[in-house]
């Protein structure tokens, strides 16, 4: 910020002299900033950067935890095996499917909820927000078990409701097929996270100036025109934050899949593959390579979303 101020207006000699002590102070503040951020930086380095670097290093070895003496450098061999294996691409497909479906449905439902809350009377808005946030407050493992038992063939109460739906097999075992399992997994994910998205979008809605929508209404714009030309463009920043947050979260989905199917019947996702390779098989080399590839995928999502985010932010500013 300060840089742009200085460059935008050429400083006179007097101003330069006046800026000197300010610059010294800025340097001091910067030093203090580093000093204060230092411990957090060291912790980040130890708990985030170190494991990533170590995983990248381990991924170059054929290394099994229960056979440490057989550790052997194989370069990119593990990556070759993973990227030519059907399992990796199948799991990537399942992960992307879950990510896309859940993010889209959550955005639609979340936006509908946000509109309801936005229109709700002030006196009940707080209560609505609290009530809506309850699923998000539940630990994912607990909600995953709740959904699992709700659809369980032996005792699931929701499963019993489906007995009355024509065209659905009364003995349908939801967790014995790919699509039915994925349906429950995604429903649980959507149920849990939609409230949070709705709150993010509600904050975005609050940013839309009322005068603009009122002016559009006076000009005779329909509901859809007001929504598509006034409200949504002004909410782009909030929408993109929601998309980025949820896409990253959904891409790393683990708990719901682990508890409901443990990856059976073609429902395995990448994080489960990394877990099973590293933790269950104790194949540290191969598991590290899976983790590194998963990390690269997450980076890619971040990169794409941030690129979009920047463009949209500029667009949003421009439209104002």
């Amino acid at each position, binding site marked *: 910020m300060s840089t742009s101020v200085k460059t935008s207006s050429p400083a006179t000699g007097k101003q330069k002299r006046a800026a000197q002590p300010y610059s010294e102070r800025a340097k001091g503040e910067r030093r203090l900033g580093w000093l204060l951020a230092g411990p957090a930086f060291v912790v980040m380095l130890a708990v985030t950067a170190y494991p990533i670097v170590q995983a990248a290093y381990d991924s170059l070895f054929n290394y099994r935890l229960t056979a440490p003496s057989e550790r052997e450098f194989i370069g990119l061999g593990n990556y070759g095996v993973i990227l030519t294996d059907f399992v990796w691409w199948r799991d990537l497909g399942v992960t992307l499917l879950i990510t896309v479906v859940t993010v889209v449905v959550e955005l639609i439902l979340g936006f509908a909820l946000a509109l309801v809350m936005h229109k709700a009377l002030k006196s009940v808005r707080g209560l609505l927000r609290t009530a809506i946030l309850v699923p998000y407050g539940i630990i994912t493992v607990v909600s995953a078990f709740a959904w699992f038992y709700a659809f369980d*063939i032996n005792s699931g109460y929701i499963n019993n409701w489906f007995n009355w739906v024509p065209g659905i097999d009364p003995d349908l*075992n939801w967790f014995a097929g790919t699509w039915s399992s994925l349906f429950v997994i995604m429903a649980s994910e959507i149920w849990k996270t939609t409230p949070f998205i709705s709150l993010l979008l509600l904050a975005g809605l609050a940013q839309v100036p009322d005068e603009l929508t009122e002016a559009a209404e006076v000009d005779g714009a329909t509901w859809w025109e007001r929504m598509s030309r006034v409200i949504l463009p002004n909410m782009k920043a909030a929408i993109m934050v929601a998309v980025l947050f949820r896409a990253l979260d959904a891409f790393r989905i683990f708990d719901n899949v682990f508890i409901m199917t443990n990856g059976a019947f073609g429902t395995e996702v990448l994080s489960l593959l990394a877990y*099973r*390779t590293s933790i*269950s098989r104790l194949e540290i080399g191969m598991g590290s390579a899976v983790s590194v590839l998963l990390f690269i995928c997450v980076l890619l999502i971040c990169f794409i979303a941030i690129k979009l985010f920047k463009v949209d932010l500029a667009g949003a500013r421009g439209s104002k």
Partner: protein
Amino acid sequence: MPQHERFDSRNRKKPRALTGVTLALGAMLLSGCSEAENVPTLTWYINPDDGGQAAIAERCTADSGGAYRIETSLLPNDAASQREQLARRLAAGDSSLDIMSLDPPFIPELAEPGFLAPVPEDVAQRTTENVVEGALAGAQWKDELVTVPFWANTQLLWYRKSVAEAAGLDMSQPVTWQQIMDAAASQDKFLGVQGQRGESMTVWVNALIESGGGQIIQNPEAPAAEVELGLASEAGTKAAEIVSTIGDEGLGGPGLATQDENFSMILFQGDNGSFMVNWPFVWPATNSAVEAGSLDEELIEDIGWTTYPRVDENEPAAPPLGGINLGVGAASQHPDLAYQAIECIVSPENQAEYFITNGNPPSNTAAYEDPRIEEAFPMADTIRESLELSAPRPQTPYYNEVSIGLQQNWAPPGSVVPATTPEQTAEFILAVLRGESLL
């Protein structure tokens, strides 16, 4: 004497006496503390049970005369998670792993890299006397005892007497899978088997292949690249035919694909129950449910038991073998004391008590002589006979890969194709073992 003086003199002695008592108590406590501190503490990592292992730990601590104290530490619920935790700790050289309750199939994987402290010869001699063959095999690696057998489990064939009678089956004679499948189908009832993708699927497939005269791994001690599988064989095909028929014809019930031991039991206890292969825990569990009033009392009268079904009527059954062995971590600071404690833990008296209180059968045949066992488990003789017949799962350091490979290809049972599944499973497992494929 003034009042206050009398009061003073009377109470002046009290502080002195109190001081004396306090000092004496303090000295006693201090000496007690130091004594307790000097007693080595052995940590016993136990699998979840009904408190039986903790009770044995207390008894052995008391019996040791202050030589050691055993503290128990609980492992996760399922065997696979227990293996993961123990393997990680052992690889990291955790010295707290003094005694470990180990599932037999995972023992070679821990023994091969030298994670287990060697069993002293005299301990090996004393603790293997009267131990059933299957449990002894599961405690060894490369013909050497690397753990001590504690309790041994086996699956029986449980049946509803009414269904067997209606189907005209003579249950006093050994029965085959075909016979019980036909009987269940003729009576429009469900068979209780474990069809979920989990360790129970490996248990089932192994029992079927062994009973059909084959073996999942032909050279279990071979290194990964040289492992030879016996899946693509006549025994493998026969096993696949049984699994696929039960899945295809709906004999296992609609929940078969996610059915574990507990759900098999619930299915068996219901109106559609007929025959079930399962561990002995079903007996105390059913009795408890009857006592609690959630099941009819007549059910107990209707339940019969016999040894595991045969694949071929002319070949003996090979019932699944489970149980727990005790191992000592190589990094333990007290291996001698740990083995001393293990000798106490696996004594026939403790095994008998553990069976009666927790329902886990002894591996030592001498323990079956306890008269209380027959009373609590009228099927104790069948269990013992089954243990003698039982076949352990493959003892290999790569058991995890083999087991998960089987689970991935044989579950759900309805997807098994006898002509192709055994061979495809073998190819898949071998590719994983050669490091050419992900699991």
